[in-house]
């Protein structure tokens, strides 16, 4: 069953710049896929369309039970609670500690206080960051910041995890750890779509690879299963 369906999606910006041109693919429940392409290929635009940060010019996107044609503005937060989103620049709230950043995404969805506490603790230990619970983002390394950001994305048990160049600011060791973490998350049933321009990553595991070039989907290499 598809958790994500992208059909004939086109997105252009001013002066005729076409960011995405007739892109179609789907992602099954629990599937892992890399979205590769050079900078400007349209990867971030596609992810932004999936979490409904913007609407496609034409075509339709169906994600976790919502579609871009019929979604109402007040439903967008509901869609995002079923998605986890991770960015290259971490996007942590600087005035909050690691545990507060994770708890925050549970707080905004109105979870009970007790649950927030136990879930945050669980995620911190899953990320190996229990000892950093009270550290502020500026006190964490790049890899630690990204793991906090992944924990936050996982807090609400998303059906689909979107990652936009999550290893872009990490050293090779942190990158390796993060990729293994994503595989582990996927093994537990969460579908993952990871955008990257680092082709070395796709050699780590024989996962499905969607290739974008100048906004056009030029390749869709099927995966061969988990490493």
């Amino acid at each position, binding site marked *: 069953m598809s958790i994500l369906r992208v059909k004939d999606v086109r997105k252009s910006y001013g002066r005729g710049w076409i960011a995405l041109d007739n892109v179609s693919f789907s992602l099954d429940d629990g599937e892992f896929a890399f979205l590769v392409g050079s900078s400007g290929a349209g990867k971030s635009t596609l992810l932004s369309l999936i979490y409904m940060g913007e609407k496609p010019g034409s075509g339709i996107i169906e994600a976790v039970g919502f579609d871009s044609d019929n979604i109402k503005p007040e439903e967008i937060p509901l*869609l995002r609670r079923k998605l986890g989103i991770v960015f290259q620049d971490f996007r942590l709230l600087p005035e909050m500690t690691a545990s507060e950043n994770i708890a925050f995404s549970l*707080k*905004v969805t109105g979870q009970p206080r007790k649950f927030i506490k136990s879930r945050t603790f669980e995620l911190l230990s899953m990320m190996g960051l229990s000892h950093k619970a009270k550290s502020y983002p500026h006190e964490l390394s790049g890899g630690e910041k990204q793991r906090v950001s992944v924990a936050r994305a996982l807090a609400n048990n998303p059906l689909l995890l979107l990652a936009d160049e999550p290893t872009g600011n990490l050293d090779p060791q942190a990158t390796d750890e993060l990729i293994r973490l994503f595989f582990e998350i996927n093994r537990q049933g969460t579908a993952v779509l990871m955008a990257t321009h680092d082709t070395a990553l796709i050699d780590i595991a024989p996962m499905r690879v969607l290739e974008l070039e100048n906004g056009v989907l030029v390749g869709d290499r099927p995966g061969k299963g988990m490493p």
Partner: protein
Amino acid sequence: MRAFLFAIGQAFSSFWRRSFVTFLSIITITIALVILGAFLTISLNLRSTLGNLKRQVQLEFYLEKGITKADVTGLLNKLESEDGVESVEFATAERARIEFIEEFGDELLRGLPGNPFPPSIRVELSHATGMGERVTELAEKYRDELQIIELSAPNRIAYRLSKASRTFLFLSLGWGIILLFAATVIITNTIRLAIAQRGNSIEIMQLVGASPAFVRMPFLFEGVLHGALSGGLAWLILWSLYRGSEYIVPGIIPLPLIMNIIIVLLGAIFGGLGSYIALRRYLN
């Protein structure tokens, strides 16, 4: 409830985080509300003074000494039926003399032949609004009546005060509207700055699925808090000004409690309105 508490917490922390902008915003709105309150106080005092004067305003028609009882009765009836007349009273020449002696003593009258005072009709006017015009109107109407030999001058002070009081009330309301608009613009801009400064946090909140109400509520509270705090400060300043002016203008009336509460509420309402406008304009 949790969202509500979160919003209040955020609103307060934003207060301290941007203390300089907050301070400027609160001071400006406070000044606006103090000016509004001061105008209202002046208007209130003018109206009160006018009320006191109204009780003293009397139109007096002096009559010929030989006027007949029937003519007096006729005049009394005519005047009583006039619009704006509260009561009419006939004062004999003897009564006028006694009243004069009671007030000034009889020395001035010694040596004068007989009673120099004419009989008169005293007319009390009923309402302050338009009183000045009514006095003039009545005086003109009865000036040429046969028996009347003189009219006392209408109370010009009351007339001017009546006009001034009305002008002041309109000015107060006009100023009030202008100042409250200015306060709203100030709060709109303060919240706009807050939105710009917290753009990153807002984006993160939206990405993790916060509802629009959850994102907006802290800003709304911040505006209400700015307005209410300014209103409270304005109340304090107006009260201090009143205590200070008591020495210069004894008997000055302060703004009633309800008006002070209204000023605080106005601050809060317009603070909320300013935030709402900022949120509508600058937060998608």
